[in-house]
């Protein structure tokens, strides 16, 4: 029953949620709405588990002065400070004032925003280095990839549009590349992936796939 019960629950709940797409009756939607709310609550509640895991993984290393304990200490201190700021000002969010506290906003504006933007900005550099390394015209397909990439990059910006005589043709070719072959390939990937997803979903719902429950 330990293995059968999860499969049964998966089957019944799975069928109900699939049915939601087909059954618009308000009584049925009341049930699925309730289930959706349970899902949202579970997702939010799992953050507590994540917090516990973070502490479980990093605190012993700090205590024992293990490898890279300094980084782990920084992580735990940052975690504690941010949590403390958020909790100490949590009540404010329920009042009509609705302003986040100075300290919490400071952390967001001067720590989180620059760090997040920096990480995202790394992509520009990594694209350049990955492109330089990988985009070699070794064969016909690679050449096609290279030409298409260069065309789309060039024609997407004002410099490409402004080329005398051929600029508008480049833009038209770029648009055609995005609208026709790109769309064809993406639709193929979408359809394939969607069918794969249906297959995986049905396997899980029907109980054919059980490796997530601990094997046979």
């Amino acid at each position, binding site marked *: 029953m330990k293995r*059968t019960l999860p499969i*049964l*629950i998966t*089957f*019944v709940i799975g069928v*109900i949620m*699939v049915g939601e797409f*087909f*059954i*618009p*009756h*308000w*009584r*049925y*939607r*009341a*049930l699925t*709405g309730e289930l959706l709310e349970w*899902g949202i609550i*579970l*997702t939010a509640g*799992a*953050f507590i*588990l*994540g917090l516990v*895991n973070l502490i479980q*993984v990093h605190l012993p290393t700090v205590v024992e002065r293990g490898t*890279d304990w300094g980084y782990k200490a920084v992580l735990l201190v940052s975690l504690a400070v941010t949590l403390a700021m958020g909790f100490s000002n949590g009540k404010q969010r329920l009042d009509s004032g609705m302003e986040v506290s100075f300290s919490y906003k400071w952390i967001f504006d001067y720590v989180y925003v620059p*760090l*997040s933007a920096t*990480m995202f900005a*790394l*992509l520009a550099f*990594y*694209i350049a280095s*990955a492109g330089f*390394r*990988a985009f070699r015209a070794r064969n016909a397909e690679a050449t096609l990839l290279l030409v298409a990439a260069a065309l789309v990059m060039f024609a997407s910006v004002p410099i490409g549009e402004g080329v005398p005589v051929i600029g508008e043709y480049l833009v038209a070719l770029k648009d055609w590349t995005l609208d026709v072959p790109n769309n064809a390939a993406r639709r193929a*990937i*979408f*359809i394939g*992936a969607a*069918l*794969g*997803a*249906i*297959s*995986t*979903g*049905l*396997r899980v719902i*029907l109980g*054919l*796939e059980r*490796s*997530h*429950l*601990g*094997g*046979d």
Partner: protein
Amino acid sequence: MRAFALRALGLLVLLLALLVCGVVAAQPASDDDSAASDDDSASDDDSAASDDDSAGDDDSAPSKDIASTESAEVDAVTGEAEAAEEGGAVRSEQWFGSADTEEGVPWGYFTLLLLILTTGGLMLYFTKQAQAGKEMFIRRMPGIDAIEDGIGRATEMGKPVLYVPGIDDLQDIQTIASMLILGQVSKTIAEYQCELIVSCCVPIVREVADEVVRAGFYQAGYPDAFRPEEIRFIAADQFAFCAGTNGIMLREKPATNIYLGRFFAESLILAETGYLNRSIQIAGTAEATQLPFFVAACDYTLIGEELFAVSAYLSRDPRLVSSLKASDYLKVAIVTALLVGTILASFGNTLMVDLFSLTLPGN
């Protein structure tokens, strides 16, 4: 099978009881803001809401005097207008189709239901065939073969294998597929007595990964080799997770990186850092925007639906391989419909379009 059916029936009864409870809980209280109950079912009421009426009602000041009790039959025009004014969600009385349609059910709903039931039926049919001993062919996929090679490489080098199940939540099908694959991978890793690090971006995924890997080690016969501290929740933020995982790569220098799941902008940063480490990298995602980055930076890339075939390929479980066969039949059906529909549409015939449409013709 009979026992399963009986248990399923028992659970269905239990859920029916839940349904009744949900219905009772959903009854509007007199002070609630929900609208007067209305009937927008086309079969019961022939009068259509007129655009002029609803437009006029939108401009007028709302009446505060609307009773929020149920009424048995409300004229669709005024009922819908009142519901719109009061702002309650219009409650459909239809049992099949879309709440928006008053004149019938679009064919797409029937087609989709038929496809899902057919696929499910085919899966069960082929499963029975597989259990009866019929061989099912599955084509070779170098990317998946490379997973075992990568684990072997990591074992020889004495370095860990890093598994990243994507950054999306557990409800995403790619994450579910990744968890299923992780079960197979962890079993292989246990057999090779290699080290595994799983880097998770979502707490609940971390919990499921913990159970899956534990089960994999147990199945392989090495339950004591499982170390829960190697299943790590890094951070719930995309780039914080990326930075943390990069840190793992640079410090612990895994020999093999496996990225299977749903990825976004962090994919290239992860893959480039792994490349810097000279790790063997196997990636698989159905996220089309990230495929080019994985193709450029990884040694093997599984594209789209190949990700969903990995667990069947690795396990060679007849049930799973047979389900792949069923989904292949579905693909053939879809492609045939696409081709036929394209030809028909080229001659002005919209039969196939209407068959798959979720809105009525002319809407």
